[in-house]
């Protein structure tokens, strides 16, 4: 079972009396792209928060590479290799693109002990400078490196957030609706970017998505969450045909003439 990256068992999460997650269990295998689908408010973001440590589960366990991290604080989980991007990009509005990456890489360099204090006090260490260029190239933001983040377009902000997450060399990347709010071209680019990063870096990707085109073009496996419960998990074709999923989420084919 060494190829299980993440295992979550019987997670329950309450907000006051409201049960956001109700006994969710699932396993992620190393290197797969798993897509989590479900209606808004189904608990997708809550599940991500529980995995990444932003919120703690009320019941159940989160096991990452054999280590129980249910109660671990989020920054330690990041250091263990769990990266996360948000539905609405969380970035540093008053910094430039380049500076944002400096921060991200500096943090990584810090816990990887790649900083030498007196020399690297004011200027970013050489590692950071080199890596910044590499990541900007990889993600395609090189021409915007000196632009203030708050003036970036929505799509670019999400890409920058992804770049910052990449700086941490994640082993498992959680992406919350990576294409939300993007134009078709941007969506296409993002899908390609995720595919490219995945094949280069061989990490595990766990993402939520509404756009079914994106879902079916990316997913190795799909899980369906419906109001706190995991209804189904499996290969895309299985999910498409699953009667339970059709009933609660996808609908039967031909139910609607247009679905966008």
């Amino acid at each position, binding site marked *: 079972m060494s190829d299980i990256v993440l295992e979550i068992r019987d997670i329950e999460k309450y907000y006051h009396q409201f049960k956001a997650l109700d006994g969710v269990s699932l396993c992620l295998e190393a290197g797969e792209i798993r897509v989590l689908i479900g209606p808004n408010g189904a608990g997708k973001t809550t599940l991500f928060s529980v995995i990444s440590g932003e919120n703690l589960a009320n019941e159940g366990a989160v096991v990452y590479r054999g280590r129980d991290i249910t109660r671990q604080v989020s920054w330690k989980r990041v250091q263990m290799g769990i990266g*996360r991007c948000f539905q609405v990009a969380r970035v540093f509005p*008053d*910094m430039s693109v380049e500076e944002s990456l400096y921060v991200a890489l500096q*943090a990584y360099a810090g816990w990887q002990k790649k900083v030498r204090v007196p020399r690297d006090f004011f200027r970013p260490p050489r590692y950071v400078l080199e890596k910044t260029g590499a990541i900007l190239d990889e993600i395609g933001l090189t021409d915007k490196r000196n632009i203030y983040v708050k003036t970036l377009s929505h799509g670019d902000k999400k890409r920058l*957030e992804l770049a910052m997450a990449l700086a941490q060399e994640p082993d498992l990347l959680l992406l919350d609706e990576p294409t939300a*709010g993007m134009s078709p071209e941007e969506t296409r680019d993002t899908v390609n970017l995720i595919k490219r990063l995945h094949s280069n870096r061989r990490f595990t990707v766990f993402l939520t998505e509404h756009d079914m085109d994106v879902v079916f073009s990316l997913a190795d496996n799909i899980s369906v969450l419906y109001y706190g419960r995991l209804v189904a998990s499996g290969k895309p074709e299985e999910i498409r045909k699953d009667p339970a999923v059709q009933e609660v989420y996808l609908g039967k084919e031909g139910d609607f003439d247009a679905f966008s």
Partner: protein
Amino acid sequence: MFRQLITKNFILLRLATAAIIIVLALSLPLWANPGITFRASLVLIYILFAASFNQLFNYTGLISFGQAAYFATGAYVAALYVKSGASLSGGIILAVIAGGLVAAFLGYISLRASGIYFAILTLALGQIVYQVIFKWPATGGENGLADIPRGTINLGLAQISLASPVSYYYLILICVSLGLFILWAVTHSNFGRILMSIKQNHVRASFLGINVRLYQLISFAIAGSIAGLAGAVYGPLTGVLMPEMATWIYSTTPILLTLMGGANFFWGPATGAVIFGIFEYLTRAMTGMSSLIMGLLLLTVVLAFPGGILGLVTSWLIGKPSIKKSSRNEGSAAASKLMPGGDVINE
């Protein structure tokens, strides 16, 4: 035309301003009378005190309402040390350490909360420091400490007496410059950049693997030790210390100096302290009206130029609005997002 000229030579202008200020600061005791020198010494101390607050406020995104407690801690530690017959330089070092330690301890507690709760927690803990100073016989209790000597500074070859206001002014100038340099270095370093990132979005920062609480705590401790440094040179200047200097009322001083000068600028607190010092000097004869005048001044400044004096000057010089709407992260500025007409783009 004029603006263009200034924009073009902005760096030159800054250098010139810096040169003038340095010359003024260095030469002040030579032309000013001892009264003004004393007030200038106080202003210098307040510059450092306020800058220590802004290290938290603008560069870390924390509002501390207990800064006076660390200032007082430093002041008392240095004063007690000097009163025991030891040299002031040792007292200053001890004060820096003590200010930092107390701040680290209280910061550790306060950082459990965030936003306005953090501010109020620092206030409450600061009041406890005040109560301790007030009740503890070793600190002179409610009577405070009097007759705090200045002593001498040993420079190896020569002993320099600090008794005269002029030599003590230079000692303060050195300490304050040193303190400001430390703050400047911290805020402009890689470490400072991480603090800035925490201020702008602490959730993202922690999802970059940054131990947000630890960084905030270190920043809090640094601000505390710098406040302690400012306090250390304060006691021997006035010769007395009162426990009241640890109360929340005194903690408002650095806040108002900072906001008056311009919180978004490193030199904002300094500007605020200088302007305020001049203002206080000019109104010294208007006895009995200080709170009314202070309140009106403060109110007009925050209402008419919320970017502070430096914000006003920059927008006038380079024609750019300088008032940044707070880019503080969601945690503490939840309120501003909820208000009608907030510039929050939801698209």
